[in-house]
């Protein structure tokens, strides 16, 4: 009897464990596991192998947009809130970085820590106000944040340089290692190569953190509150703690993105963090795919490369004409406007036909592509398990 009972419990426990283990496993399949390791390695190796400043600067731009978008995705995707005010947090991060990394000239880890802490604190301060509101009120509040942020930063000209902006070279050194002039095996690498490496290591870190968070109880609380507010509360989830946490993570990553923005341009002005940027972030997370791990990165890649590619290959795209402020009688889309058109069309099409975003389309495409391959490999192993 005793043995039977014990095997019984053991067995159910085992089955249960297995299901949970499969669900909370960090990497669902070997492909993603080795893919992640490979991509992280690529972040280090790629900048060492090329010095093409066009490619590197595009890469860095995609990187810091990704970091901020990964943060926003926690809030807009997983937590189901609507925040259009991410530029406000980018501005906070940028000017914290300017204060600690440029004016006080502290080493990299210290000012990064300051950026993250200040970003998280500002998010936690805004959160109670934003969480009281829903729908329209929350949207308008987040738009208000952008305008108020610009007012504060334009007038705090000692730090921000006012309307004209200021040059700000950030200190990128960690002890003996200086990312502004990396030295490996007798070779010195330039500023952009070092920054590329740094930014993409942080993209990897942020993706991994968000991924882990969403597998943890805290992340599950956030998703539960999004999907079924009342039942989640009844089940004993503290809505304030979970949602304020989501806000703090989102704003901390936004601030980090802003800090790297300054590091890339080595210049900062409050005007950069405007409404247009907020709309771009919304487009990035939506087009990439809300509440997906890769969505923000895919979205940033697309949104950031469109303007660059459009201006480079303008002659091959129909209906395009050179930028000019005066109408010259011919109808055509100025090169500067082409990306805007494309964003708009992309956003409308994605929402109408595939609300799960481009990531989902890519996944379906990938599965279709590797379909024949997998069927052959999976079939025998399935047979073994059942037998």
């Amino acid at each position, binding site marked *: 009897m005793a043995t039977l009972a014990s095997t019984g419990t053991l067995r159910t426990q085992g089955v249960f464990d297995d299901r949970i283990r499969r669900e909370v496993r960090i990497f669902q399949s070997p492909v993603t596991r080795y893919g992640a390791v490979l991509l992280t390695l690529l972040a280090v190796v790629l900048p060492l192998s090329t010095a093409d400043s066009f490619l590197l600067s595009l890469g860095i731009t995609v990187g810091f947009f990704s970091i901020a978008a990964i943060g926003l995705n926690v809030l807009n995707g997983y937590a189901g809130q609507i925040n259009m005010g991410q530029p406000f947090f980018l501005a906070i991060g940028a000017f914290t970085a300017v204060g600690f990394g440029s004016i006080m000239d502290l080493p990299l880890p210290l000012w990064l820590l300051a950026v993250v802490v200040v970003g998280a604190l500002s998010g936690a301060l805004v959160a109670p106000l934003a969480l009281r509101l829903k729908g329209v009120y929350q949207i308008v509040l987040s738009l208000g944040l952008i305008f108020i942020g610009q007012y504060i930063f334009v007038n705090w000209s000692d730090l921000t340089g006012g309307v004209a902006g200021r040059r700000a070279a950030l200190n990128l050194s960690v002890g003996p290692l200086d990312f502004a002039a990396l030295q490996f095996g007798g070779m010195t690498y330039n500023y952009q190569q070092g920054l590329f490496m740094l930014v993409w290591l942080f993209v990897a870190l942020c993706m991994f953190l968000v991924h882990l968070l969403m597998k943890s109880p805290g992340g599950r609380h956030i998703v539960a509150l999004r999907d079924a507010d009342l039942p989640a509360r009844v089940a004993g989830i503290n809505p304030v703690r979970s949602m304020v946490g989501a806000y703090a993570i989102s704003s901390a990553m936004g601030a980090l993105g802003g800090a790297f923005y300054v590091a890339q341009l080595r210049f900062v002005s409050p005007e950069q963090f405007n409404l247009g940027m907020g*709309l771009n972030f919304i487009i990035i997370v939506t087009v990439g795919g809300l509440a997906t791990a890769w969505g923000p990165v895919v979205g940033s890649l697309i949104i950031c490369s469109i303007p660059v590619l459009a201006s480079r290959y303008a002659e091959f795209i129909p209906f395009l004409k050179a930028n000019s402020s005066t109408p010259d009688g011919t109808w055509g889309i100025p090169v500067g406007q082409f990306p805007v058109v494309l964003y*708009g*069309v992309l956003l409308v099409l994605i929402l109408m036909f595939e609300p799960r975003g481009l990531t989902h389309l890519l996944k379906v495409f990938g599965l279709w592509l590797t379909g024949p391959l997998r069927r052959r490999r999976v079939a025998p192993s399935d047979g073994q398990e059942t037998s």
Partner: protein
Amino acid sequence: MDTFVQILISGIALGFLYALVSLSFVVLLKATGHFNLLPGSFVLLGAYTLFQFHQNFGIDFWLSLLIAILLVTALGLGIQYVIFQRIDRTADQHAAGLAILLVTIGLLSLSQATAVSSWGAEVLLLGDPWGLNTLRLGAINVPMRDIWVIALSIAVLIIFWLVIQHTRVGVGMRAIASDTQAAFVQGISPRKVAPYAWLMSAGAAVIAGVLMATEAGGGLRPTLDVVAFTALPALILGGIRSLPGCVAGGLVLGVLQQLANGYAPAAFGQHFATVLPWIIMIIVLLVRPSGLFATREFRRA
């Protein structure tokens, strides 16, 4: 004293503009059930359409205004039938709200690009009949544009009030806004009411856009839609579902903003007047999230 009266009048004019834009938002919210940013596009495209007909085709100003309103209404209805209804069918309530908001952000980018592509990025003159004339009343100089803003806005508001209170369509609109199911049962068809709602929304937005784009208002420029968003605090202040609330909220913010423009000490910094409505809005949201003029059916959702 004279300066004060001048500031007051320009504040009232600004307030009516805010009121018109936020009315456009509210009517659209009531008609489609979802908050969206289309009035921003309406403001922009309406003003440019009027420019096209009045300046390029040489049609009379008022007739061009009418044409612009009708074209923008048609555009809005097209958007509703092609995009909104599809999203409404495929997504559930919460997701549809978010999706429609996001779609209108996409449409906003598109309309901005259309404006720049077709009419260029520089500031254009609308060729309005009143121009930069001013009316002299003793020591007070009142721009004719402000007087037209106030007069036109009051006319629009009276028409709105008459339509909503005293016509079958208006009754239908109110019924649908207060209880969609019950209105269905009573035989009110949203399909028949929707065009009028879009017409009202487009009318308010286009008139506001044209008045903002006149010479005294800073000229016709592709960033007009962002100017339209400055009316959002008035919307919140008025409590989002009430039409009289919008007017009151708009007037309060307009007057306060112009007073701050004229009298705020330099210590408050640059752009203080621009940001004042948003600060007031946040304080209102903190203290009284239902808006200062909330109607009874208010929910915080």
